[in-house]
């Protein structure tokens, strides 16, 4: 009875209508296609890559694109295309893990801060302010550097600082949602705070979180690639796009393809997530502004 009453009053973004609005946004659809293609490439990497990404062929060092090597080879004779294909796994894994963790932590803390208010709200928001006092990824850079170079440490460091924007945005959304009639109705029907936060507040603050998570993927991929480029992420011989760019630096004159292709891969992936995120923002617009 309680659920029936409350469902009639509340409204979060209906899935089908959002998809319909998103389909009109051509660039967002293109972005989604690229992301799906990349996911498939990552999933079926061993079948798509023509060579072993870590196998050295010193006789085939620094070959230009063509023949057996569609994107050429690197300074150790490894197939660049194969390394890019396997590197997509690292990119997507880092992105999904960090965004998954940061959005979950940020949403939980944002809902608690916004709904409970008072000292808890003050404490959480001050934590956010303190972490945001360090510009961008500087803190992540230092933490990853001090802990030692590895993909896990990069992901850990980025997760440590990445939840703050979600918490802030969700808290703002909760502040407007919690005064709405369906929340009051649920409260008067005897629903506990936890039930209200989970069943009624959460679905109504998801719209901005979906947009932020998508754009956040773009940001995390760039950050993780930057940290790897600086030598802090995935270590040789494992393939990762940022560290491949770093390896290509000293061979720019003789093998510019080592610089061009990994960077292009990063840019296309980030672009795809940015297009999709922009499209989702427009598609979810009625529900993003509704709560204000």
């Amino acid at each position, binding site marked *: 009875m309680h659920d029936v009453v409350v469902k009639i009053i509340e409204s979060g973004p209906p899935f089908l209508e959002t998809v319909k609005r998103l389909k009109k946004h051509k660039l967002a659809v293109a972005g989604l296609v690229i992301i799906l293609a990349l996911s498939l490439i990552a999933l079926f990497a061993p079948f798509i890559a023509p060579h072993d990404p870590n196998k050295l062929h010193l006789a085939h060092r620094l070959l230009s694109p063509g023949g057996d090597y569609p994107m050429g080879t690197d300074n150790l004779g490894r197939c660049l295309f194969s390394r890019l294909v396997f590197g997509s796994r690292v990119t997507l894994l880092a992105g999904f893990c960090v965004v998954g963790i940061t959005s979950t932590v940020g949403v939980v803390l944002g809902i608690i801060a916004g709904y409970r208010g008072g000292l808890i709200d003050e404490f959480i928001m*001050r934590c956010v*302010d*303190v972490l945001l*006092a*360090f*510009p*961008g*990824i*500087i*803190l992540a*850079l*230092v*933490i990853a*550097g*001090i*802990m*030692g170079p590895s993909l896990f440490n990069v992901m850990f460091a980025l997760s440590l600082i990445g939840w703050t924007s979600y918490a802030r945005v969700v808290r703002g959304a909760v502040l407007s949602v919690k005064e709405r009639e369906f929340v009051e109705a649920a409260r008067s029907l005897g629903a506990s705070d936890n039930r209200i936060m989970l069943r009624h507040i959460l679905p109504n603050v998801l719209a901005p979180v979906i947009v932020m998570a998508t754009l956040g993927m*773009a940001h995390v991929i*760039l950050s993780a*690639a*930057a940290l790897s*480029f*600086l*030598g*802090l992420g995935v270590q040789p011989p494992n393939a990762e796009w*940022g560290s491949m*760019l770093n390896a*290509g*630096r000293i061979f*720019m*004159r003789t093998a*510019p393809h080592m*610089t*061009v292709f*990994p*960077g292009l891969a*990063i*840019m296309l992936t*980030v*672009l795809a997530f*940015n*297009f999709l995120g*922009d499209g989702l923002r427009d598609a979810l617009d009625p529900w993003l502004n509704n709560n204000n």
Partner: protein
Amino acid sequence: MAHYLLRRFCSMFFILLCVSIITFSLMHFVPGDPAKLIAEKKYGDNVTAEAVELVRSEMGLDRPVFIQYFNWMAGILRGDFGISSSTGRPVWDEITSKLPATVELALAAMLVSLIIAIPVGILSAVKQYSIMDSACMLGAMLGVSMPNFWLGLLLILVFSVNLGWFPVYGRGDLTQLILPALTLGTGIAAVTARLTRSSILETLKQDYIRTARSKGLAERAVINRHALKNALIPVVTVVGLQIGSLLEGAVVVEVIFAWPGLGRLLYDSIFARDFSVIQGCVFFIAVMYVIVNLLVDIIYVWLDPRIRYEAG
């Protein structure tokens, strides 16, 4: 306004206190014993247990953590950031000698970004939905998505390696500043262009613009006399917000172009495990960032009287 300022100052001091605690704790992210790491660096890999204990007591690492923090903080407040284990020089001297290079790079990058972003943003907004608008915004999207370290490498490849117009590394004359400034400034320009466009579009919807148009004013006069000033207020905020991106991006750009700034110092000290410099740099950068944000907020409140009255 005074009340708002007082609140911001108090908040700033509290934040800086927490920043100092976090910065101090960074050393404890080291896997293993920090004293052993420092001793190995000083005396070589086959360091004895006695040498490690000597280092531990020299650095005060045998004392309780909060005593270590108070000693470190007391030093910071006296301007004593410790001694670099790589160069033997005071950390404060290392930081202040590298700071002008970073400031020079940041200002040049900011100039580049404003020269690109403001005209592009205005043009896009005034000719909304035209091909020009779509092209500009696609360009901005490309700029936002392009890794700045890749752009830097591409610029080196084209302009230094192939064309030979600019030197690749170092700091000296103006030609050495151009590529780093372009690299750092372009990504920021992309974000600023998008914001300028949406800010002007938002301003053009306002009632006073409709009034100006219905008075019979030419469109150019409407834009120049009424829209621009108000639309540029949020741009001032974004320029302030980009300081963070500038500082963050400066690390990568300084490494690529061997630009002798703070970012490069931080990077080198991480790989050299020079903890005094790491802590000093991080704290200095955070303090600078917090103070600059406060100044930007004050300017924003001063520029927009409505905020002043709301902020009390």
